[in-house]
Protein backbone atom coordinates (compact mmCIF):
# COMPACT_ATOMS: atom_id res chain seq x y z
CA UNK A 1 0.00 0.00 0.00
CA UNK A 2 1.45 3.36 -0.94
CA UNK A 3 1.53 6.08 1.65
CA UNK A 4 -0.37 9.22 0.71
CA UNK A 5 1.83 12.23 1.31
CA UNK A 6 0.46 15.58 2.32
CA UNK A 7 0.82 18.52 0.01
CA UNK A 8 3.45 20.02 2.25
CA UNK A 9 5.46 16.78 2.30
CA UNK A 10 5.29 16.64 -1.48
CA UNK A 11 6.44 20.25 -1.66
CA UNK A 12 9.42 19.57 0.62
CA UNK A 13 10.43 16.56 -1.46
CA UNK A 14 10.05 18.56 -4.66
CA UNK A 15 12.23 21.29 -3.19
CA UNK A 16 14.83 18.64 -2.41
CA UNK A 17 14.85 17.68 -6.10
CA UNK A 18 12.43 14.73 -6.17
CA UNK A 19 10.87 15.03 -9.63
CA UNK A 20 8.24 12.37 -8.93
CA UNK A 21 7.06 14.31 -5.88
CA UNK A 22 7.01 17.50 -7.95
CA UNK A 23 4.82 15.80 -10.56
CA UNK A 24 2.41 14.54 -7.90
CA UNK A 25 2.34 17.93 -6.22
CA UNK A 26 1.32 19.72 -9.41
CA UNK A 27 -1.19 17.08 -10.39
CA UNK A 28 -2.86 17.49 -7.02
CA UNK A 29 -2.69 21.26 -7.24
CA UNK A 30 -4.21 21.26 -10.71
CA UNK A 31 -7.18 19.14 -9.66
CA UNK A 32 -7.92 21.39 -6.74
CA UNK A 33 -7.32 24.60 -8.62
CA UNK A 34 -9.70 23.50 -11.37
CA UNK A 35 -12.34 22.98 -8.74
CA UNK A 36 -11.70 26.34 -7.04
CA UNK A 37 -11.73 28.12 -10.38
CA UNK A 38 -15.02 26.48 -11.28
CA UNK A 39 -16.51 28.07 -8.20
CA UNK A 40 -15.96 31.40 -9.90
CA UNK A 41 -16.24 30.87 -13.64
CA UNK A 42 -17.38 28.65 -16.47
CA UNK A 43 -15.87 25.25 -17.18
CA UNK A 44 -13.29 25.80 -19.91
CA UNK A 45 -12.16 29.17 -18.63
CA UNK A 46 -11.74 27.61 -15.19
CA UNK A 47 -9.48 24.89 -16.60
CA UNK A 48 -7.39 27.46 -18.45
CA UNK A 49 -6.99 29.68 -15.40
CA UNK A 50 -6.10 26.70 -13.20
CA UNK A 51 -3.46 25.51 -15.68
CA UNK A 52 -2.04 28.99 -16.03
CA UNK A 53 -1.79 29.31 -12.25
CA UNK A 54 -0.06 25.96 -11.97
CA UNK A 55 2.46 26.91 -14.66
CA UNK A 56 3.25 30.16 -12.85
CA UNK A 57 3.72 28.28 -9.59
CA UNK A 58 5.91 25.65 -11.24
CA UNK A 59 8.18 28.26 -12.73
CA UNK A 60 8.57 30.28 -9.53
CA UNK A 61 8.06 28.10 -6.49
CA UNK A 62 11.71 27.22 -6.01
CA UNK A 63 12.89 30.84 -5.78
CA UNK A 64 9.95 32.07 -3.77
CA UNK A 65 10.32 33.27 -0.16
CA UNK A 66 6.98 32.49 1.48
CA UNK A 67 5.43 34.72 4.07
CA UNK A 68 3.08 32.01 5.30
CA UNK A 69 3.37 28.73 3.43
CA UNK A 70 3.68 27.29 -0.04
CA UNK A 71 -0.02 26.42 -0.05
CA UNK A 72 -1.06 29.95 0.89
CA UNK A 73 1.19 31.41 -1.78
CA UNK A 74 -0.04 28.97 -4.43
CA UNK A 75 -3.65 29.73 -3.51
CA UNK A 76 -2.85 33.42 -3.78
CA UNK A 77 -1.46 32.90 -7.28
CA UNK A 78 -4.70 31.22 -8.34
CA UNK A 79 -6.80 34.01 -6.87
CA UNK A 80 -4.70 36.53 -8.73
CA UNK A 81 -5.16 34.64 -11.99
CA UNK A 82 -8.92 34.51 -11.45
CA UNK A 83 -8.95 38.25 -10.74
CA UNK A 84 -6.91 38.92 -13.88
CA UNK A 85 -9.31 36.80 -15.89
CA UNK A 86 -12.30 38.84 -14.76
CA UNK A 87 -10.50 42.11 -15.36
CA UNK A 88 -9.67 40.95 -18.85
CA UNK A 89 -13.26 39.86 -19.49
CA UNK A 90 -14.69 43.07 -18.09
CA UNK A 91 -12.41 45.14 -20.30
CA UNK A 92 -13.32 43.12 -23.35
CA UNK A 93 -17.03 43.36 -22.61
CA UNK A 94 -16.75 47.09 -22.08
CA UNK A 95 -15.04 47.43 -25.42
CA UNK A 96 -17.58 45.28 -27.21
CA UNK A 97 -20.93 45.81 -25.54
CA UNK A 98 -20.48 47.70 -22.28
CA UNK A 99 -23.09 47.94 -19.55
CA UNK A 100 -23.56 44.37 -18.29
CA UNK A 101 -22.36 43.32 -14.87
CA UNK A 102 -19.22 41.18 -14.71
CA UNK A 103 -21.03 38.86 -12.29
CA UNK A 104 -23.28 37.76 -15.13
CA UNK A 105 -20.24 36.22 -16.77
CA UNK A 106 -20.18 33.56 -14.10
CA UNK A 107 -23.66 32.31 -14.94
CA UNK A 108 -23.31 28.65 -14.92
CA UNK A 109 -25.11 27.23 -17.94
CA UNK A 110 -23.82 23.74 -17.41
CA UNK A 111 -26.30 23.22 -14.58
CA UNK A 112 -29.30 24.01 -16.69
CA UNK A 113 -29.20 20.57 -18.25
CA UNK A 114 -29.59 17.19 -16.61
CA UNK A 115 -33.29 16.55 -16.32
CA UNK A 116 -32.86 13.37 -14.36
CA UNK A 117 -30.65 15.06 -11.78
CA UNK A 118 -33.18 17.87 -11.36
CA UNK A 119 -36.01 15.44 -10.86
CA UNK A 120 -34.06 13.48 -8.27
CA UNK A 121 -32.95 16.66 -6.56
CA UNK A 122 -36.48 18.02 -6.24
CA UNK A 123 -37.75 14.72 -4.97
CA UNK A 124 -34.99 14.58 -2.34
CA UNK A 125 -35.44 18.19 -1.27
CA UNK A 126 -39.14 17.55 -0.80
CA UNK A 127 -38.36 14.51 1.30
CA UNK A 128 -35.77 16.36 3.38
CA UNK A 129 -38.24 19.17 3.99
CA UNK A 130 -40.49 16.71 5.78
CA UNK A 131 -37.77 15.61 8.21
CA UNK A 132 -35.40 18.56 8.36
CA UNK A 133 -37.28 21.69 7.26
CA UNK A 134 -34.62 23.99 8.69
CA UNK A 135 -32.23 22.86 5.96
CA UNK A 136 -34.62 23.95 3.25
CA UNK A 137 -35.20 27.22 5.05
CA UNK A 138 -31.44 27.83 5.34
CA UNK A 139 -30.94 26.84 1.71
CA UNK A 140 -33.71 29.17 0.62
CA UNK A 141 -32.23 32.09 2.55
CA UNK A 142 -28.78 31.40 1.10
CA UNK A 143 -30.30 31.45 -2.38
CA UNK A 144 -31.98 34.75 -1.67
CA UNK A 145 -28.60 36.26 -0.94
CA UNK A 146 -28.73 36.62 2.83
CA UNK A 147 -25.40 36.50 4.62
CA UNK A 148 -24.62 33.93 7.29
CA UNK A 149 -25.08 36.54 10.03
CA UNK A 150 -28.48 37.57 8.67
CA UNK A 151 -29.62 33.97 8.32
CA UNK A 152 -28.51 33.18 11.85
CA UNK A 153 -30.50 36.15 13.13
CA UNK A 154 -33.58 35.16 11.16
CA UNK A 155 -33.36 31.52 12.19
CA UNK A 156 -32.31 32.43 15.74
CA UNK A 157 -29.30 30.12 15.68
CA UNK A 158 -25.59 30.61 16.21
CA UNK A 159 -23.25 30.27 13.18
CA UNK A 160 -21.88 26.94 14.43
CA UNK A 161 -25.37 25.50 14.59
CA UNK A 162 -26.16 26.97 11.18
CA UNK A 163 -23.24 24.97 9.74
CA UNK A 164 -24.53 21.88 11.55
CA UNK A 165 -27.96 22.38 9.95
CA UNK A 166 -26.36 22.72 6.52
CA UNK A 167 -24.07 19.72 6.88
CA UNK A 168 -26.86 17.54 8.28
CA UNK A 169 -29.09 18.48 5.35
CA UNK A 170 -26.28 17.85 2.91
CA UNK A 171 -25.70 14.40 4.36
CA UNK A 172 -29.40 13.58 4.00
CA UNK A 173 -29.39 14.94 0.46
CA UNK A 174 -26.37 12.88 -0.52
CA UNK A 175 -27.87 9.75 0.98
CA UNK A 176 -31.18 10.34 -0.78
CA UNK A 177 -29.51 11.01 -4.14
CA UNK A 178 -27.48 7.83 -3.74
CA UNK A 179 -30.75 5.96 -3.46
CA UNK A 180 -31.98 7.59 -6.65
CA UNK A 181 -34.18 10.17 -5.00
CA UNK A 182 -36.52 7.54 -3.63
Amino acid at each position, binding site marked *: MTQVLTMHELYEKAMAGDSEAEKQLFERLLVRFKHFAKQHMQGEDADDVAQEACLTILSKYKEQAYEKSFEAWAHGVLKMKIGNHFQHLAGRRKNIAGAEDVENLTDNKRFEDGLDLKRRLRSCLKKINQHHPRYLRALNLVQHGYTTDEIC*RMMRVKPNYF*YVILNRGRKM*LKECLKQGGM
Partner: protein
Amino acid sequence: MGGCINPSLGKLLHAYELKSLTPEETDRFELHLLECDHCFNEVSSMVDEIGTMLYDEPTKQAITDLAGQPLPSAEPVSFWRHFWPFRTPLLLRPGFIYALLVIALIPAYIGVSSLITSKAHPIQSIGLYQTRSVEIPILDKSRGSDAVINFLLDNFSRNDILSVTIKGNDGRAVYANENFTGVDDQGIGRLYLEFDRFKAGSYTLEVINRKQQSPADRSVFEFTIK
Protein backbone atom coordinates in the same frame (compact mmCIF):
# COMPACT_ATOMS: atom_id res chain seq x y z
CA MET B 1 -10.00 6.84 3.77
CA GLY B 2 -9.71 9.03 6.85
CA GLY B 3 -11.94 11.88 7.94
CA CYS B 4 -11.38 15.60 7.90
CA ILE B 5 -7.97 16.68 9.17
CA ASN B 6 -9.38 19.83 10.75
CA PRO B 7 -13.06 19.51 11.73
CA SER B 8 -13.30 23.16 12.84
CA LEU B 9 -12.70 24.11 9.20
CA GLY B 10 -14.43 21.04 7.82
CA LYS B 11 -17.74 22.23 9.26
CA LEU B 12 -17.70 25.03 6.67
CA LEU B 13 -17.91 22.53 3.83
CA HIS B 14 -21.51 22.95 2.75
CA ALA B 15 -21.48 26.70 3.40
CA TYR B 16 -18.49 26.86 1.04
CA GLU B 17 -20.34 24.87 -1.60
CA LEU B 18 -23.30 27.21 -1.28
CA LYS B 19 -20.98 30.24 -1.53
CA SER B 20 -22.23 31.66 1.72
CA LEU B 21 -18.79 32.14 3.26
CA THR B 22 -17.08 35.51 3.43
CA PRO B 23 -14.05 35.94 1.11
CA GLU B 24 -11.72 35.40 4.07
CA GLU B 25 -13.51 32.23 5.11
CA THR B 26 -13.50 31.02 1.51
CA ASP B 27 -9.71 31.48 1.33
CA ARG B 28 -9.24 29.65 4.60
CA PHE B 29 -11.44 26.81 3.48
CA GLU B 30 -9.77 26.51 0.08
CA LEU B 31 -6.39 26.32 1.81
CA HIS B 32 -7.89 23.58 3.93
CA LEU B 33 -9.08 21.83 0.77
CA LEU B 34 -5.53 21.83 -0.56
CA GLU B 35 -4.49 19.64 2.35
CA CYS B 36 -7.65 17.75 3.28
CA ASP B 37 -8.41 14.94 0.83
CA HIS B 38 -11.58 14.03 2.69
CA CYS B 39 -13.16 17.46 2.31
CA PHE B 40 -11.94 17.85 -1.26
CA ASN B 41 -13.43 14.52 -2.25
CA GLU B 42 -16.69 15.48 -0.54
CA VAL B 43 -16.82 18.80 -2.38
CA SER B 44 -15.93 17.14 -5.69
CA SER B 45 -18.59 14.49 -5.25
CA MET B 46 -21.50 16.92 -5.21
CA VAL B 47 -20.45 19.57 -7.72
CA ASP B 48 -23.31 18.99 -10.14
CA GLU B 49 -26.00 18.65 -7.47
CA ILE B 50 -24.95 21.77 -5.61
CA GLY B 51 -24.49 23.67 -8.86
CA THR B 52 -28.00 22.74 -9.92
CA MET B 53 -29.39 23.91 -6.62
CA LEU B 54 -27.57 27.21 -6.96
CA TYR B 55 -28.04 28.00 -10.64
CA ASP B 56 -31.01 26.11 -12.04
CA GLU B 57 -34.02 28.43 -11.85
CA PRO B 58 -36.76 25.73 -11.63
CA THR B 59 -34.83 23.98 -8.84
CA LYS B 60 -34.36 27.27 -7.02
CA GLN B 61 -38.07 27.96 -7.38
CA ALA B 62 -38.85 24.49 -6.04
CA ILE B 63 -36.76 25.23 -2.95
CA THR B 64 -38.55 28.54 -2.44
CA ASP B 65 -41.91 26.81 -2.85
CA LEU B 66 -40.98 24.23 -0.25
CA ALA B 67 -39.45 26.64 2.27
CA GLY B 68 -41.70 29.63 1.63
CA GLN B 69 -40.80 33.16 0.66
CA PRO B 70 -38.37 34.58 3.21
CA LEU B 71 -39.66 37.52 5.16
CA PRO B 72 -37.71 40.76 4.92
CA SER B 73 -34.89 40.76 7.37
CA ALA B 74 -35.96 42.95 10.23
CA GLU B 75 -33.10 44.05 12.38
CA PRO B 76 -34.04 42.96 15.89
CA VAL B 77 -33.44 45.73 18.39
CA SER B 78 -32.59 44.61 21.87
CA PHE B 79 -34.65 45.90 24.77
CA TRP B 80 -31.73 47.91 26.18
CA ARG B 81 -30.93 49.45 22.80
CA HIS B 82 -34.20 51.42 23.03
CA PHE B 83 -32.79 53.15 26.08
CA TRP B 84 -29.30 53.68 24.71
CA PRO B 85 -29.44 54.19 20.92
CA PHE B 86 -25.90 54.74 19.69
CA ARG B 87 -26.80 57.14 16.93
CA THR B 88 -28.66 59.56 19.20
CA PRO B 89 -26.70 62.34 20.94
CA LEU B 90 -25.95 61.49 24.55
CA LEU B 91 -28.19 64.19 26.02
CA LEU B 92 -31.20 62.94 24.03
CA ARG B 93 -30.83 59.26 24.85
CA PRO B 94 -33.82 58.07 26.87
CA GLY B 95 -31.56 56.16 29.25
CA PHE B 96 -29.61 59.33 30.04
CA ILE B 97 -32.81 61.33 30.63
CA TYR B 98 -34.25 58.61 32.88
CA ALA B 99 -31.00 58.52 34.84
CA LEU B 100 -31.18 62.29 35.37
CA LEU B 101 -34.80 62.03 36.52
CA VAL B 102 -33.93 59.28 38.98
CA ILE B 103 -31.02 61.30 40.38
CA ALA B 104 -33.27 64.35 40.74
CA LEU B 105 -35.97 62.34 42.51
CA ILE B 106 -33.66 60.75 45.10
CA PRO B 107 -33.70 63.74 47.54
CA ALA B 108 -37.47 64.00 47.27
CA TYR B 109 -37.81 60.29 47.91
CA ILE B 110 -35.52 60.46 50.94
CA GLY B 111 -37.49 63.43 52.34
CA VAL B 112 -40.87 61.78 51.93
CA SER B 113 -39.74 58.40 53.21
CA SER B 114 -38.11 59.92 56.30
CA LEU B 115 -41.31 61.84 57.00
CA ILE B 116 -43.31 58.64 56.76
CA THR B 117 -40.92 56.63 58.91
CA SER B 118 -40.61 59.29 61.57
CA LYS B 119 -44.20 58.50 62.69
CA ALA B 120 -44.97 62.14 63.21
CA HIS B 121 -47.37 62.78 66.07
CA PRO B 122 -49.08 66.03 66.91
CA ILE B 123 -47.19 67.77 69.70
CA GLN B 124 -49.13 67.66 72.94
CA SER B 125 -49.71 70.86 74.73
CA ILE B 126 -50.89 71.59 78.26
CA GLY B 127 -51.60 74.84 80.02
CA LEU B 128 -50.51 75.36 83.63
CA TYR B 129 -52.29 78.05 85.64
CA GLN B 130 -52.05 79.11 89.24
CA THR B 131 -55.56 78.19 90.20
CA ARG B 132 -56.89 76.15 93.00
CA SER B 133 -58.31 73.64 90.64
CA VAL B 134 -57.74 70.04 91.76
CA GLU B 135 -57.41 68.83 88.22
CA ILE B 136 -53.74 68.31 87.36
CA PRO B 137 -52.86 68.39 83.63
CA ILE B 138 -51.61 65.12 82.22
CA LEU B 139 -49.14 64.47 79.39
CA ASP B 140 -49.40 61.09 77.67
CA LYS B 141 -46.03 59.64 76.54
CA SER B 142 -47.76 57.15 74.28
CA ARG B 143 -49.06 59.97 72.08
CA GLY B 144 -45.68 61.20 70.99
CA SER B 145 -42.20 62.05 72.05
CA ASP B 146 -42.56 65.78 72.67
CA ALA B 147 -44.83 68.27 74.39
CA VAL B 148 -45.15 71.97 75.02
CA ILE B 149 -46.00 73.27 78.45
CA ASN B 150 -47.63 76.69 78.56
CA PHE B 151 -47.66 78.52 81.83
CA LEU B 152 -48.96 81.93 82.85
CA LEU B 153 -46.93 84.25 85.07
CA ASP B 154 -48.39 87.10 87.06
CA ASN B 155 -46.51 90.40 87.40
CA PHE B 156 -44.05 89.60 84.63
CA SER B 157 -42.22 92.40 82.93
CA ARG B 158 -39.90 92.24 79.96
CA ASN B 159 -36.68 92.81 81.94
CA ASP B 160 -37.28 90.06 84.45
CA ILE B 161 -34.88 87.15 84.61
CA LEU B 162 -36.53 83.80 85.13
CA SER B 163 -35.22 80.62 86.58
CA VAL B 164 -37.20 77.52 85.60
CA THR B 165 -36.85 74.14 87.26
CA ILE B 166 -38.80 70.91 86.87
CA LYS B 167 -38.63 68.55 89.80
CA GLY B 168 -39.84 65.05 90.21
CA ASN B 169 -41.67 63.49 93.15
CA ASP B 170 -38.42 62.92 95.01
CA GLY B 171 -37.54 66.63 94.81
CA ARG B 172 -34.68 66.05 92.37
CA ALA B 173 -34.39 68.55 89.49
CA VAL B 174 -34.91 66.95 86.10
CA TYR B 175 -34.70 70.15 84.14
CA ALA B 176 -33.22 73.52 85.11
CA ASN B 177 -32.73 76.74 83.19
CA GLU B 178 -31.33 79.73 85.10
CA ASN B 179 -32.02 82.19 82.36
CA PHE B 180 -35.29 81.18 80.79
CA THR B 181 -36.34 83.45 77.95
CA GLY B 182 -39.35 81.64 76.51
CA VAL B 183 -41.91 84.10 77.88
CA ASP B 184 -43.81 86.58 75.79
CA ASP B 185 -44.98 90.08 76.71
CA GLN B 186 -48.23 88.78 78.14
CA GLY B 187 -46.35 86.58 80.63
CA ILE B 188 -47.09 83.30 78.87
CA GLY B 189 -44.14 80.97 78.98
CA ARG B 190 -43.61 78.10 76.65
CA LEU B 191 -41.36 75.22 77.57
CA TYR B 192 -40.53 72.51 75.14
CA LEU B 193 -40.30 69.10 76.72
CA GLU B 194 -38.63 65.96 75.40
CA PHE B 195 -40.31 62.94 76.95
CA ASP B 196 -37.34 60.66 76.77
CA ARG B 197 -35.78 62.64 79.62
CA PHE B 198 -38.79 62.04 81.85
CA LYS B 199 -40.25 58.99 83.52
CA ALA B 200 -43.93 58.63 84.20
CA GLY B 201 -44.94 60.39 87.40
CA SER B 202 -45.83 63.71 88.98
CA TYR B 203 -43.72 66.78 88.43
CA THR B 204 -43.63 70.36 89.61
CA LEU B 205 -42.60 73.26 87.48
CA GLU B 206 -41.05 76.04 89.58
CA VAL B 207 -40.53 79.48 88.06
CA ILE B 208 -38.62 82.07 90.08
CA ASN B 209 -38.35 85.68 89.09
CA ARG B 210 -34.85 86.38 90.41
CA LYS B 211 -34.81 90.07 89.69
CA GLN B 212 -37.48 90.95 92.11
CA GLN B 213 -36.16 88.66 94.85
CA SER B 214 -39.50 88.35 96.47
CA PRO B 215 -41.19 85.16 97.64
CA ALA B 216 -44.41 86.27 96.05
CA ASP B 217 -42.79 85.84 92.60
CA ARG B 218 -42.15 82.16 93.00
CA SER B 219 -44.68 80.26 90.93
CA VAL B 220 -45.19 76.52 91.19
CA PHE B 221 -47.23 74.41 88.77
CA GLU B 222 -47.98 70.72 88.87
CA PHE B 223 -48.39 68.27 86.04
CA THR B 224 -48.32 64.55 85.50
CA ILE B 225 -46.68 62.39 82.87
CA LYS B 226 -48.17 58.97 82.31
